[in-house]
């Protein structure tokens, strides 16, 4: 076995798999000054220990990984897989490049991951499951849960993918990902549009009488446009959010308005 072979092939399939599984530690170490760094340290430790025979080198590598790192836990595996491959190839010499890759990609990958996995999927499937569930039908819930169960079972492969393809994949993935995000946005926007009148279903409880004829306030509004109130509410909240109001503040304000509105007979469901 010549030197070149030795320095390149340190990790076995089993090692890679082990680190992939260990990445399920996810964001549980999250804190404000280092993000999820401790998590990736723990996940990669067995592989890094194998790569770096000298303690001093291992320390340097870990030191690198303790630096602030925040990315979507699922997509992060692709990056970390790639960096593991880089470190396996070039050891201590690769550390700067490793950090550059992490620093450069954690932003975009977070953007895509957060949008797709923390926001889009739960909204679309959550809306469908929730609407069905409210009627007592668990079918939507099973679909939603089933989808995520599949993700869970196969997610670790992203680490292996990153490891095998290294930096090439990550770059070529970039283009496809942005097209995919656009496509998902179309889906998302249509579903959100549909959710507005169907899920946000509070109504006006006031009645009017005009020239001896009793009219329900909600009926009048519906004649103007069904779903008018929900659309207005979303519009106002959107504007406030854009202006920099915090979400938790708005949640409290909405609850307040709802309670006061109900108390004075303005709103009902």
């Amino acid at each position, binding site marked *: 076995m010549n030197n070149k072979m030795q320095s390149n092939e340190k990790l076995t399939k089993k090692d890679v798999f082990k680190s992939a599984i260990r990445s*399920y*530690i996810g964001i*549980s*170490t*999250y*804190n*404000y000054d280092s*993000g999820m760094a*401790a*998590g990736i*340290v*723990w996940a990669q430790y067995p592989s890094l220990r194998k790569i770096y025979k000298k303690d001093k080198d291992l*320390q340097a590598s870990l*030191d690198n990984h303790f630096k602030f790192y925040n990315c979507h836990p699922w997509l992060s595996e692709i990056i970390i897989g790639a960096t593991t491959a880089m470190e396996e190839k070039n050891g201590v010499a690769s550390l700067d490049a490793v950090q550059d890759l992490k620093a450069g990609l954690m932003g975009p990958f977070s953007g895509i991951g*957060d*949008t797709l996995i*923390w*926001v889009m999927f*739960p*909204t*679309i499937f*959550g*809306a469908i*499951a*929730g609407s*069905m*569930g*409210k009627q007592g039908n668990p079918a939507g*819930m099973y679909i939603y849960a089933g989808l*995520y169960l599949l993700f869970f079972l196969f997610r670790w492969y992203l680490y292996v993918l990153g490891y095998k393809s290294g930096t090439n994949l990550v770059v070529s993935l970039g283009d496809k990902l942005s097209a995919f995000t*656009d*496509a998902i*946005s*179309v*889906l*998302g926007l*249509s579903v*959100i*549009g*549909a*959710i507005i*009148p*169907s*899920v946000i*279903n509070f109504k006006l409880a006031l009645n009017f009488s005009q020239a001896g004829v009793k009219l329900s306030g909600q009926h009048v509004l519906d004649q103007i446009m*069904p*779903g008018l109130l929900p659309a207005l*509410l*979303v519009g106002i*909240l959107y504007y406030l959010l854009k202006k920099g109001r915090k979400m*938790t503040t708005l*949640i409290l304000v*909405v*609850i307040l308005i*709802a*309670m006061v*509105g*109900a108390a004075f007979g303005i*709103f009902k*469901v």
Partner: protein
Amino acid sequence: MGLTIWQVILITLVAYIQRMDFATTTIFPAHSIVWGTITGIILGNFQMGLVTGATLQLMSLGVAAVGGSSTPDYPVAAIISTAVAITTGKGMAAGLALGVPVGMLCINLDVVLKLLNSFFTNKAHQLADKHEFKKMTHLIPVMTFLMPLESAVPVFLAVVFGKPIINAILNFMPKWFTTGLNVAGAMLPAVGIAMLLTYMPIKKYGYWLLIGFTLAAYLKMATLGVALIGIAAAIPTFRKQVSKSNNSSDGSEKSNGLSKEDMEDE
């Protein structure tokens, strides 16, 4: 609250597992509907769990803990609301009255635990610098096991000590309070949805909002139906974007003029 010891333990365990899952395995991370149903099953009322969970799921639409921020813990609210609704027999409104505030209080615990994580991570880093690697690998998972307390502790407290609070609320609860909670439940998704919209490319694809809204508001189309149309629209969008980036003379996505392609499609 009329719960047996076993039920209290199980429910607290569910809360612990829920938060652990959220931070690590993410099998059911934001699935208030699932956690509510599970609680319902433990207490012998699948339906109530499902309906309560579903309500909280809808309230939590679009709400996500992006970039390390903290959000109300809706799954916790689902667990507590279901537990209260079933055991008091007063239905979902009573459950929400306790569940939602507790879910919001969890934000504070989340912040505290994250600060604690700072401390542990720094310790782990120091161990690495001293080459005490084994110790380091043992220390890090401690954080993993501490974080779920954000859910487990409030749930435990609510379930064990919530009775007097619930009774006070139930006694005080005039009719409009229930209506108020239901209205709040119907209005809250608007916050999440508005939040969601701030992330989305409205300038570029905003007209799909209009399409989805019209289908649902006027034609009363079910959300799944709109989703299918959305998927159908997403496919040509994807193809177009991919071919755009392949042709890449102008990589930017501003298409102010109509290209031949644009005119051909619709």
